[in-house]
């Protein structure tokens, strides 16, 4: 065991393991300023307004 894990309490260790899957989701969070990210999960035909343009989400690919 590493020095850090030795220092962690059992409770903190469990919390860290529970949080791990969520980190991958956080990594894919869309940029608040664009609609680019997350496109693979959204309807490609959805109408979006970006920088004044009326576009289809798939236009942003």
């Amino acid at each position, binding site marked *: 065991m590493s020095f850090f894990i030795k220092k962690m309490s059992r409770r903190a260790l469990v919390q860290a393991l529970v949080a791990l899957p969520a980190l991958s989701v956080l990594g894919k969070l869309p940029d608040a300023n664009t609609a680019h990210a997350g496109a693979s999960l959204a309807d490609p035909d959805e109408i979006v307004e970006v920088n*004044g343009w*009326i*576009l289809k989400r798939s*236009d942003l*690919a």
Partner: protein
Amino acid sequence: MIFDSYEAYRAASFAPKVCILGSGPAGTTIARKLDAAGIPVVVLEAGSRDFSDESQDFYRGSTVGDFYFDLDITRLRFMGGSSNHWAGWCRVLDKQDFEPKAWAPDTGWPIRRADIEPYLPEVHDILDLADFRPDVPISDDIRWVQLIKSPAVRFAEKFGDELDKSRNIAVVLNTYATELAGDGKRVTGARLWSNGRDAGTFNADYFIVCTGGLENSRLLLWSNQRSNGGVVPNAAALGRYWMEHPTFEGGNAILANYGEFEVDDVKEAFFSPTLAAMERLKIMNFGIRLIETPYAGVKSLVADLACTAPDMAEWMSSKLSQNLRCAAQLYVAWEQAPLASNQVELSKTDVDHAGVPRIELHWKKSELERRTLVEGLKLFGTTLIEKDLGRVRLMDWIANGEDYPTNEETAGHHHMGGTRMGTDVARSVVDANCKVHGMDNLYVGGSSVFCTSGQANPTTTITALACRLGDHLSKVVSV
């Protein structure tokens, strides 16, 4: 007959049954209809044969609220009225414009479009129009609509000879009816101003006020004030529900193929919402005018798109290389929701040379109209996407929710409402026949009787209503 002064007219001993105030499209059309029925009519025109600064000065006024044109610029005070600077766009109000809209208070007319349709053949002759073509649905939400660019008939030029030769019509120039007198049942006379001084009282059996979409309200407000309510006995709506067609450049479109839409002789196409779209989004009518953009504008538009949607920009760029005419400016004109607070008032401090209070126009665009502008452009943009025809970009001030710019078209110089038609005397001034509520011999012609504005330029509907009123008067007035 045309007289250049009231003095010359008096010397002719003409005995009219009807007195029309104003020689614009409405006044001239009604006079010609009465002439055809053999009814002698005098047309009092405040201006002369030509434009003059002195005459226009009578039209100065002020505006409170949103930015608007100077009131002596937005209309013309000489023979033929504002037809002298009319651009010539023609279209009758839509059928749906006459119907009440649950989401917009005080909409709906007491007549239907079918009531003026029988007069359209006459209107086509008067305005030198080709036949209108039916609307073409582009999607469930957007329809292609036709506005005919007419030769812009100047009424004095086109009908001057006819008026001059008529034995039933006397056009009297330089004669300003400053007020009407009334006893609450009838107009008993018109006070005249000619050659820079009071010219006495003029009498006729019937009076038809056709002085324009601002001036009709002014004249009746002043007359009513002077007659203690004797000219418009039910005056709650007098001057109110005034409307324009706000008009702004709303955005641009890049089109895959400019030839997708039928354009007119000046390379423009027009689009409006379907009734279903208006009902679903609870918006007013609007017209999007699509105008071809110069090539330099296309390149900057594609460059802008490249920052947001590179692949789409690349596709557009390839289209651009095939077709240099593939971008457009989008101008939007829309129907104003009728609001009692948008109104013509009389100035408390400023009068014209004849002592008549000038106009203080209160005018503001509403939140419903802003939504109509934004949703309208989005509907058009969505339609282009659905049909794979192109893409739309909103102007920055719209996308960012900023105020209306003050350096653009602003509005159409279309002055509507103020003496609106209706059955409820608290919310209207004239009845379905354009007769002032409670008065036996006073009628109003012109766009001041409009209950709603629709999105179409008003002259075609003004002329149709004038034909209808002329027919009505021909039956009512006994020779």
